């Protein structure tokens, strides 16, 4: 698949990642090429150790590639300094994790505000945007609750609101339905589809072929390479 840089949310060219494990070079990613156009909704499947988590970490600027070029929104982000990467990660990338990763001591609205306050936004403005994001995911009535007072589905909605409140270029989801029962998982997937319909670019890592089937296209990884995909 090919698209111009301008229409691509992200583009990977020859991305490799090699780890040194006890003096043995382990190649987690092997010359990966990938274009994700804006408003794409793509799943990445693969067995454990296939390299999908490494790919997600590189896409989220949590890790850097050993070789290759990574463009996010048309900008080369392959070799950023730590503060630059943190700034772009906070502004352009939204993370959704399998285990929600909410901070238990903060109430719902403070959890959602967190990426905004880390970016230096004024508290009142951050709070207003957090309320708005929570309203979008149907949780406007639970803003003062602690994460421990919420169900799994509600926690994941809070995590989605937190990821969306910065209006990111790219939404990265790592097994977002992995810790949910099937009914709640369907609700979350419906929410993802709604976001996609509204124009959000989503890259989702999953083991579940049913989840992958609901994405616009699905890629499979094996031995650090993208093996196959369908539109």
């Amino acid at each position, binding site marked *: 698949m090919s698209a111009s840089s301008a229409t691509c949310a992200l583009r990977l060219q020859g991305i490799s990642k090699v780890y040194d494990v006890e003096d043995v070079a382990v190649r987690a990613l092997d010359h990966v090429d990938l274009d994700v156009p804006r408003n794409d909704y793509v799943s990445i499947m693969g067995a454990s150790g296939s390299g999908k988590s490494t790919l997600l*970490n590189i896409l989220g600027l*949590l890790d850097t590639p050993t070789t290759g070029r990574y463009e996010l929104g048309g900008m080369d982000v392959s070799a950023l300094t730590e*503060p630059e990467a943190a700034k772009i990660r906070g502004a352009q990338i939204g993370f959704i994790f399998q*285990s929600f*990763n909410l901070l238990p001591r903060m109430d719902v609205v403070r959890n959602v505000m967190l*990426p905004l306050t*880390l970016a230096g936004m*004024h508290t009142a403005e951050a709070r207003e945007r957090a309320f708005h994001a929570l309203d979008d995911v149907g949780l406007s009535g639970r803003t003062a609750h602690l994460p421990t007072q919420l169900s799994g589905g509600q926690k994941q909605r809070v995590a989605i609101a937190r990821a969306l409140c910065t209006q990111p270029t790219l939404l990265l989801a790592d097994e977002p339905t992995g810790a949910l029962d099937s009914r709640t998982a369907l609700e979350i997937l419906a929410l993802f589809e709604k976001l996609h319909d509204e124009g959000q670019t989503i890259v989702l890592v999953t083991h579940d072929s049913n989840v992958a089937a609901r994405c616009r296209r699905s890629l499979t990884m094996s031995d650090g390479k993208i093996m196959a995909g369908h539109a």
Partner: protein
Amino acid sequence: MMLARTLGSALGSLRDHPLRSFLTALGIVVGVASVVAVIGLFAGLDRMVGDQFAGMGANVLQVRAETSIEEEMRGERNVITYDDYQRLSARLTGASAISPVFELTDGRQSVRHGRSELPTRVIAATRRYQGSGSITLASGRFLSDEDSHARRRVVVLGDGVVERLNLTHDAVGEFIQINNQWMKVIGIAAPKGRILGFSQDDFVLIPFETGVSLLAASARPNLTISLTPREGVENATLVRQVNALLARDTNGRSRDYIKVETSSELAGTFTNITRIGGVVAGCIVAVSLLVGGIGVMNIMLVSVTERTREIGIYKALGATRKQIRVQFLAESMVVAGSGGLLGVLMGCLLCLAVSALVPGLPLTLPPWWSWLLAFLFSAAVGVFAGYLPAMRAASVDAVISLRRE
């Protein structure tokens, strides 16, 4: 704005573990409270000594002989003799009053009343000693010039002696024995308390000439002579006159051991002792603050390990290493700083409590600079204790920490 947010966030983190935060801060609280209380108590002592010397009158000069440790080891003893006193009495023109004082011997004299017997200082003095010694009478009268001239066997008792001889405070007219000599009690001094732990009430005063008459022929009492300058005579002039009259002994040898000091100089010497004591004690106690700091560092390191996943989440949401570092440093400083504030409060209360319990010590609050110093030092301990944990937190790998369960 950012500072307020960081401090607010740090306070929030500490509120999550109130007991742990309190116990962590406790080391700092104890350290700061000790420093502040010790400085405060020494300041109180300083004030007490100053007040005592102020009672003597700033314009009184004391002439005394000093014996160095080396001379004492050689068995030598420098004295101001009765002849010196007579020479000053006859020829010193700059002084309006000359008041000699000596202790009957260097050792303590045995004083007896009925079956009660105790060793105490027996001081031979003139009537002027009442002013220079700041003696207020609780009952009876003080020694007079007539008592001295007539060599009367009369005494004025210090308050401490009255109690220990089982006498009452209306014991005027009673008789006591000093070295088997009967003496009539003519006055009882009001209590004066203690200086540097030494009782100021443990004495018996007898008239100066009575004291001279009681001396053995071979005795060489060491006199201290108090001088009050005549009006218009500078202290320095009087000092020069005294030095000129007493500069050489009868054999023509130099007597550089004779010192002439004003009471304010004497007070200054004692004040210096208490100040140096305060600083030394403060420094020793400050070591406990460092121990408290190590406690803070230990807990902060544990906290970093416990919150590795949280740090990963922060990083995934856009936090930089610097923001993580500042957050942990702020938490350490808030622990140490609040411990410092609580410590200052506890130190002040401790100082007030101790000064209220110790007789003679004025009710003193530690000086403001000790509050500031202790608080700033505790904040510095917070930075020192938080630096290593903060660096460790900032270097946490987000990928690895997010994978942790």
